[in-house]
Structures are given as structure tokens and as C-alpha cells.
């Protein structure tokens, strides 16, 4: 059915090929319909829905505590930050003030999640453009973060550590020691990433000037996160709308103005340094106190509409709740960063080669369950 519609629009020397849904460079089940002239891309049309689970419909049936668990399954590499978004939305609606200890722990774990996510991205992005070693370097370092998470809450990826009102458990006695060990370790390893990949001439030639996105287009396409910031668009929610303990720390927003794939790459590398700095500022200053405030067993939000945005590793994640005063949301919409970032893929890929498409797509850092909610 797709084939026939494409066929009707063919010019004589154009043809189309499928990329995906099982292509290694699409990092999940994303199918791209490429219209090609020779090896030049004329059009990229994403075909979505292979793993759509209709989480928004399930949310209308579930309680607010249950919804937190579903958000893990969207952007699984930023699971803790997604959890935090729903919890913040519910806490703001109920006007609950969580203890400072919770805010600081949430921020530390959020930044560790960001490092882990960027780390994995760096590994697979190197692999996409043919540098296999990066994968093993990245997974070696990421493993330490996952071990910390496992000790803290029992899960390595889909954490479920946040609940409305605070955290599910207090941190493990080893937490501070192990985070410090990781930071010391990672600060010696991150410069190796530059030596291995960033300064590699072949890599740079594949990335520079490829997939250019202007600032105006970035805003118009709703780009956020490192994709927007690579185009010089200052869009870090941690700066514009600070949440949890992010107003207590100082960090720089990573910004590049080139707008090409290499700029997006550099933004993410710098963000890892900034996240290290945020964790360092907070890890010795975790306040004493409770790790949660008690909420009612059945949470009912007041009638009204609530919006909460946070900065995940991929960009701006929003939770829009319409409540009618019952224990379920009337309507819940997730604004996922990957969805908007995918929509600009056609714009940056047209006119390039198929190899450039792989490089551009790698720097968009798509996570398909985040798009197919």
C-alpha cells in the first residue's frame, strides 16, 4: 500500500528503498522510505507504529502511581528523568513540597542517567559510522552507572525510583562512595573519547557540514535538547525552567552555532562534562532528612490542567495532564523530544547521500519507543 503511493509519484530516474524496520542504524524498529536518485536522497518518509503501545490510552485507565511506571518504557535511556516529570506534575498539582534530600538525590540520579544515555549514544554513534571500538569503551564506563542504579533501586534501566511525594527507598550506604569512584574514573576516560573519535580526521570529515539545521528551522520543527543546541538555539529546560535541585548548581549550557552533525556531537560531549560538574557539586551536600512525604494511597488531582516539562537526555519532555478530579487523568499527553526531532530528519537529509543520512540520524539520537508511545 505504501509502495503504490510512492510509485505514483516517481520521476523517471528515481526509485525507492526501504531502510529498516530492522536496520542496525535505526536503533529500533523504525522504517524509513527513502526516495533515491542515484545515491542522492530526494525524500525521507518515516513509517512509525511498529511498537506503539498506546501508553496515553493506558494512562486514562491507571492511577497516578501506575503511570510513573509506564514512562520508563518510553525513553528507556532517560527513564529516571521521565519518572521525575510525572512525579513533579503530580506534586505541583497537589502542592506537595518534597524534602531537599529528595530534590538533590533526584538531580544526581538524573544527571547520572544523562551521562549513561550520552555514553551509550557515543558508543553506537561511533559504530554507525564504522568505528567499532567506541562501543566497547562506552559500555565499559556505562556499566559502572548501571551498577550504581542496581544497588540503589534494584533495576539497571527501567528504574521506577521516583514516586509521587519522593523516592521509593533511601539511597544505599555505598551510593556516595561509588558515585565518587565513577566520577574519578570517568574523568580520566572522557578525554580518551576525544583522542579516539572526536579528533579523528576521517570521523570529522564524515560529520562536518553534514545534516545542517539552521536555528530558525530548529525552532520551527520543535527541536530540543542537543539537536536544538547544536544549532545555537538555547533551549535547556534546566536553565529556562529549573526543577528539583537544578537551581542550586552552576553549569554552562552547551551551545554550538554550526548546526551540523559535528556540532550536535560536540554538544553531547560537553554535556557529559557539565553533568559531571553538577554531580560533583551535589554529591557531598546531600541534606539529611526524609526520602519521601506521605501521600494518600489514592491520589486524586484537583480539577484542572497541569503541564510539567523536564530536560531528558534527548530534549524537552512534557507531561500534559487534564484532570477532572478523579483518581485517573481524563487525558494525558506526553510531549516526547524524539517525536519532534524525527520530524526534521527529512529536512536535514534531503540532498545528501545515504551514508550522510546514517551520520545525521545518529546525531539526532532517536529512541524509537519514545516516538512510538
Amino acid at each position, binding site marked *: *500500500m505504501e509502495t503504490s503511493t510512492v510509485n505514483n509519484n516517481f520521476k523517471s530516474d528515481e526509485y525507492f528503498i526501504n531502510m529498516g524496520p530492522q536496520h542496525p542504524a535505526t536503533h529500533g524498529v523504525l522504517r524509513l522510505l527513502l526516495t533515491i536518485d542515484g545515491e542522492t536522497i530526494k525524500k525521507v518518509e518515516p513509517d*512509525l*507504529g511498529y511498537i*506503539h503501545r*498506546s501508553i*496515553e*490510552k493506558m494512562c486514562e*485507565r491507571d492511577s497516578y502511581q501506575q503511570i510513573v511506571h509506564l514512562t520508563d518504557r518510553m525513553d528507556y535511556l532517560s527513564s529516571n528523568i521521565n519518572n521525575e516529570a510525572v512525579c513533579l506534575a503530580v506534586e505541583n498539582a497537589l502542592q506537595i513540597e518534597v524534602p531537599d534530600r529528595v530534590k538533590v538525590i533526584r538531580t544526581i540520579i538524573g544527571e547520572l542517567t544523562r551521562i549513561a544515555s550520552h555514553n551509550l549514544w557515543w558508543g553506537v554513534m561511533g559504530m554507525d559510522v564504522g568505528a567499532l571500538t567506541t562501543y566497547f569503551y562506552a559500555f565499559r564506563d556505562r556499566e559502572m552507572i548501571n551498577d550504581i542504579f542496581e544497588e540503589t533501586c534494584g533495576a539497571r534501566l527501567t528504574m521506577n525510583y521516583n514516586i509521587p511525594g519522593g523516592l521509593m527507598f533511601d539511597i544505599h550506604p555505598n551510593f556516595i562512595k561509588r558515585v565518587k569512584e565513577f566520577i574519578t574514573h570517568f574523568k580520566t576516560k572522557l578525554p580518551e573519547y576525544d583522542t579516539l573519535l572526536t579528533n579523528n580526521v576521517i570521523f570529522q570529515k564524515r560529520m562536518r557540514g553534514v545534516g545542517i539545521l539552521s536555528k530558525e*528551522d530548529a*525552532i*520551527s*520543527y*520543535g527541536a*530540543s535538547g542537543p539537536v536544538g543546541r547544536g544549532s545555537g*538555539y*538555547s*533551549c535547556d529546560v534546566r536553565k*529556562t525552567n529549573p526543577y528539583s535541585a537544578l537551581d542550586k548548581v552552576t553549569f554552562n549550557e552547551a551551545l554550538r552555532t554550526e548546526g551540523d552533525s559535528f556540532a550536535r556531537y560536540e554538544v553531547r560531549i560537553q554535556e557529559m562534562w557539565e553533568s559531571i560538574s553538577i554531580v560533583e557539586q551535589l554529591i557531598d551536600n546531600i541534606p539529611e532528612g526524609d526520602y519521601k512525604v506521605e501521600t494518600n494511597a489514592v491520589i486524586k488531582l*484537583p*480539577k*484542572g*490542567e*497541569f*503541564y510539567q*516539562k523536564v530536560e531528558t537526555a534527548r530534549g*524537552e519532555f*512534557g507531561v*500534559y495532564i*487534564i484532570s477532572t478530579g478523579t483518581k485517573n487523568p481524563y*487525558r494525558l*499527553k506526553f*510531549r516526547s523530544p524524539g*517525536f*519532534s526531532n*524525527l*520530524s*526534521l530528519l527529512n*529536512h536535514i537529509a534531503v540532498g545528501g547521500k545515504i551514508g550522510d543520512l546514517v551520520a545525521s540520524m545518529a546525531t539526532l539520537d532517536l529512541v524509537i519507543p519514545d516516538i*512510538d508511545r
Partner: protein
Amino acid sequence: MTNEALQNLIGTWVPNPVTSELEFTEEESQFLNISVQPADLHQLMTQLKSNSETSFDYLFCLSGVDWGKELGVVYHLESTTHRHIIVVKVKTEDRENPVFDSVYDIWKTAEFHEREVFDFFGIKFNNHPNLKRLFLTEDWDGFPLRKDYVDDINMIVK
């Protein structure tokens, strides 16, 4: 710009604020909300984007909503220069053939978001460049995020 200043400014764009049915409210929401008639939607959106004092250039969330009797779309807009936020709502009671104007020509991100709304709510958008189902297959029956959607096999109702 504060919500009050925004409300005053946008109120002056329409010739007669009493009859034009532009409703402002801040009740039950943290943002300023505007309800607009479907016929006036595109003109209002164009002005919100192009006016230098409002300059809402970032459409960060576009959601379809089924209010029971009415179907509608909620637009969350932010200005990247002034950093103010506004919410625009448009509703229709026509559940058989709901149609609004597309805002794709104003914000390009609307292309995918409007396709998602069409897929799950069956709301059509005039002048959309490629309006077809985005996640579901072309032969899918019904619109799953509507409140009256029934699927005895795949849906678990509590």
C-alpha cells in the same frame, strides 16, 4: 510579557472583543488559555507568531482532546525571545467530520503532531501536506483515543 498584558494586547486584535467569541481564562491552569472559534484559528495563530511583541515561535505541544461532547485541539505555544507561554484551544461539536485549519505553514513541527491527532482522534486538518495515519495501519477502524472507542479484544477496562 505578563498574562494580563498578553490578554490586553490580543484582545485589541479583534475588532469587537464582545462578539468575536475569544475567551480568556487562567482558571484551573498555570498558563493563560484562549478559546477560539475554528474559523478564526488560523488568523489568530498567524498573528501570534508574526507579531513582534508576542512572537510565539515555538509550538512545543499539540494535543488532541475528546471532551465527551466536543472534540478539540490544544496548542501550547512559547516564545523563545520573550519566554512567555500561552495555550490556545479550539473545539467543535461535529464528531462525524471534525475539521480545523492546519498550522503546518506556521510551525513545521505541526506536520507530525497533526497526523498523530488525525490518527487517534479522527480530526482532519485543512491544507495539511500529507494527512494520513501515522502510527496505525490505513485499514484501522475507529479512532482509539476517543472516549467512545470500543475494542473488546485489545483493551483492558478496569
